[in-house]
């Protein structure tokens, strides 16, 4: 045998097994006694943004993120996409003065005004609107349902950006065409109810001003108690309304009782329109296209069921689904509609007419300008002078704007405008101080818009540069003013034929009993759900 010479190096089975067992035992013994190298500890294989990689507890300028309740009807967050950049806190705190403006510990609510500015600042779109597209498509596919839609003023100068058009591109006709192509049974214009808002809110303002002039405590017509506090606040922006309910509930008597144009149209669709068309309101679905995430919250407010109450079913909501401009763009893409190639189409009758005064609702100062135009008419019986068609002091992106104008028979009417809730605080704190010291009100009418630039800069608008830039806002502002000045035939809300018609046929007159049932609302004191900071 080879082995017999003892030099060939071939290992016998016995030697091999001995070796392996020995090595195994040594290894096990080493492991058990802890002699083995420990290897790497678990974890630490990832990263955190640079600002967090500093020794000890050094301050970090931009850190953390805003809290978002999973039940939030407007916005949702996907943690997988969150990189903790801190931009949402910047928007919430520095622009909107919400985060950081309440004491800790919190109470029974995650304080959020649903404005959605954080969705515009979030660089990864981890924060986004709550997506209702599927539910709207399901409604469209159900042939038993009559699905109506309304589009807000600001959407018509923004949705084009999602299809490669420059900011501010006016695409009203194409948007209407796209909605009709997707199968909506009625395509209406929120401009119609914006004009209606002017009639209602203007009438309310005139009543408040006249009451102050007469020095009395006015009782409204039809027996209901009319609010008399001046200044009157606009109530179109649901983020602003909720902000006031949270942080300034003591000033809610100043809030116009008018619903926002979205809610007015929702309430009228399931009453006035349904009646005129002979449609069962229970088989209607009311959709809105808004530049706004707070509109989802507003539509779901329990008191926004006037049409339901009127129709004997309080569970029926006035607006069923509020989609953002971004969701509309996504929907158009889902339907594979070549948006830029569409031929312009017109809004449907009954609730489709809008004036230039309505379209500028989308701009900061726009509601004010529209209200002044028709308010002048309501106070004097005459249409306003040329100057009031181009009211420069209320236009532009300055955070707080003020103007005064002489109205015959009334005297000086003083107005103010704030957009972005941080700016709103300036006027609100001043008013609080004035009331404490029993000073005469500085203003008669104040327009508040939650988002910088007004609705054109809304939290539901197409995402743009980071942080959202004034150049884009200005382009959208300019386009709405162009539509007002050059494209719309009428520039006065009270001249809207369909508005005149609805008063003649249905509502009676502005602030009538029916108008109050359908077009006005009440507010909720949310002050007990947080501890607002005294001085933030």
């Amino acid at each position, binding site marked *: 045998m080879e082995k017999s010479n003892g030099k060939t190096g071939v290992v016998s089975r016995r030697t091999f097994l001995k070796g392996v067992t020995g090595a195994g035992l040594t290894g096990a013994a080493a492991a058990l006694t802890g002699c083995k190298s420990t290897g790497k*500890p678990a974890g630490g294989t990832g990263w*955190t943004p640079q600002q967090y*990689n500093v020794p*000890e507890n050094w301050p970090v300028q931009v*850190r953390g*993120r805003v809290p978002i309740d999973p039940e939030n009807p407007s916005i949702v967050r996907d*943690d997988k996409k969150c990189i903790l950049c801190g931009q949402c806190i910047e928007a919430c705190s520095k622009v909107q003065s919400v985060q950081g403006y309440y004491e800790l510990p919190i109470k029974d609510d995650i304080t959020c005004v649903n404005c959605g500015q954080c969705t515009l600042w979030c660089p990864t779109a981890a924060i986004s609107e709550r997506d209702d597209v599927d539910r709207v498509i399901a409604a469209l596919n159900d042939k038993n349902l009559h699905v109506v839609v309304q589009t807000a003023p600001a959407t018509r100068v923004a949705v084009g950006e999602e299809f490669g058009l420059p900011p501010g591109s006016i695409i009203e006709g194409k948007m209407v065409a796209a909605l009709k192509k997707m199968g909506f049974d009625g395509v209406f214009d929120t401009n119609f109810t914006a004009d209606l808002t002017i009639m209602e809110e203007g009438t309310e303002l005139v009543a408040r001003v006249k009451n102050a002039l007469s020095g009395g405590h006015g009782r409204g017509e039809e027996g209901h108690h009319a609010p008399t506090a001046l200044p009157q606040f606009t109530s179109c922006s649901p983020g602003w309304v909720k902000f006031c309910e949270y942080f300034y509930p003591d000033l809610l008597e100043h809030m116009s009782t008018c619903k926002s144009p979205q809610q007015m149209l929702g309430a009228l669709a399931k009453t006035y329109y349904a009646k005129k068309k002979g449609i069962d309101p229970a088989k209607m679905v009311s959709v809105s296209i808004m530049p706004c995430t707070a509109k989802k919250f507003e539509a779901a407010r329990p008191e926004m069921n006037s049409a339901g109450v009127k129709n004997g079913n309080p569970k029926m909501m006035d607006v069923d689904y509020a989609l953002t401009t971004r969701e509309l763009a996504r929907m158009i893409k889902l339907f594979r509609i070549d948006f830029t190639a569409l031929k312009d189409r017109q809004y449907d009758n009954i609730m489709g007419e809008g004036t230039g005064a309505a379209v500028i609702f989308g701009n900061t100062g726009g509601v004010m300008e529209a209200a002044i135009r028709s308010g002048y008419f309501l106070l004097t019986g005459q249409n306003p002078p040329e100057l009031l068609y181009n009211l420069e002091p209320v236009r532009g992106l300055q955070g707080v704007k003020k103007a005064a104008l002489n109205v015959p028979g009334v005297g000086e009417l003083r107005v103010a405008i704030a957009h972005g809730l941080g700016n709103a605080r300036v006027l609100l704190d001043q008013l609080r101080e004035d009331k404490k010291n029993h000073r005469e009100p500085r203003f008669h009418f104040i327009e508040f818009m939650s988002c910088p630039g007004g609705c054109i800069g809304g939290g539901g608008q197409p995402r743009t540069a980071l942080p959202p830039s004034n150049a884009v806002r200005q382009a959208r502002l300019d386009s709405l003013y162009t539509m007002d000045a050059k494209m719309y035939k009428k520039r006065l809300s009270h001249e809207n034929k369909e508005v005149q018609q609805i008063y003649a046929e249905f509502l009676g007159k502005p602030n009538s009993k029916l108008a109050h049932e359908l077009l006005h609302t009440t507010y909720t004191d949310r002050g007990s759900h947080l501890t607002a900071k005294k001085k933030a």
Partner: protein
Amino acid sequence: MSKAILVDVTKCYGCGACTVACKLWNGKKYDDAKKPTVGENAQLADINWTVVSKHRVADASGKTVWRFAKKQCLHCKEPACASSCLVGALRKTEGGPVVYYPDLCVGCRYCMIACPFGIPKYEWDKSFPEVSKCQMCSGRLAKNEAPACVSVCPNSAMKFGDSEQILKDARAAIASDKRYVKHIYGEKEAGGTAWMYISDQPFDKLGFKATVKNRPLPEYTWKIINKIPAALVVWSGILTGVYMITKRRDAVKSSKNSEGKGGKP
């Protein structure tokens, strides 16, 4: 110097930034449906080293309020997990963290039974599973950086520092503000932990275990285990003695036998 962290439950508004930081830094996956990291159903899991659990409790006036409690391994001063580990895969480091070394782990999961807080989890979904728990970012601590979760908190609800100072701060905080319950969770629990909590709510209402004894668990086993070397020496002595006696007896027997045989040629 041992490090510690003080969590002030009243400063947390439940944003969950800490849970995201933990996932980013440690490369852990998300499973929002089955293993949420924030909210009423948040539970520590193999992929969730830290969670923020939501609790509805009553405030001083009896009104329902929300509180959020950040949970993770508390990093005991005398960790039962490490003392139960046969192979030294869990080790208490000088800086404070109780660190897990997966290369050493044999998967016996004694640590999971030993931990009084029920912290270590097991990767049941994996073919080659490991035990899984918060490392207190031992790598960051080595660079004198705070753990990832601590550094991202927008409300500074967590404070990182030397353990003695942190304990002093905690005592000062509950002494200066009467809203706080007079209890620092983690000061004494299981012999003291690197993570400590102060709160305006009793801790059992925030999902913290109130039944954990103050005596460190390893002390209980140590009473027995420390006698093993002596027992070994004595026992082997006895056995050696028995062996010697038996051998001697056998030798005597066999020599007697051979003598007998030799007598009968």
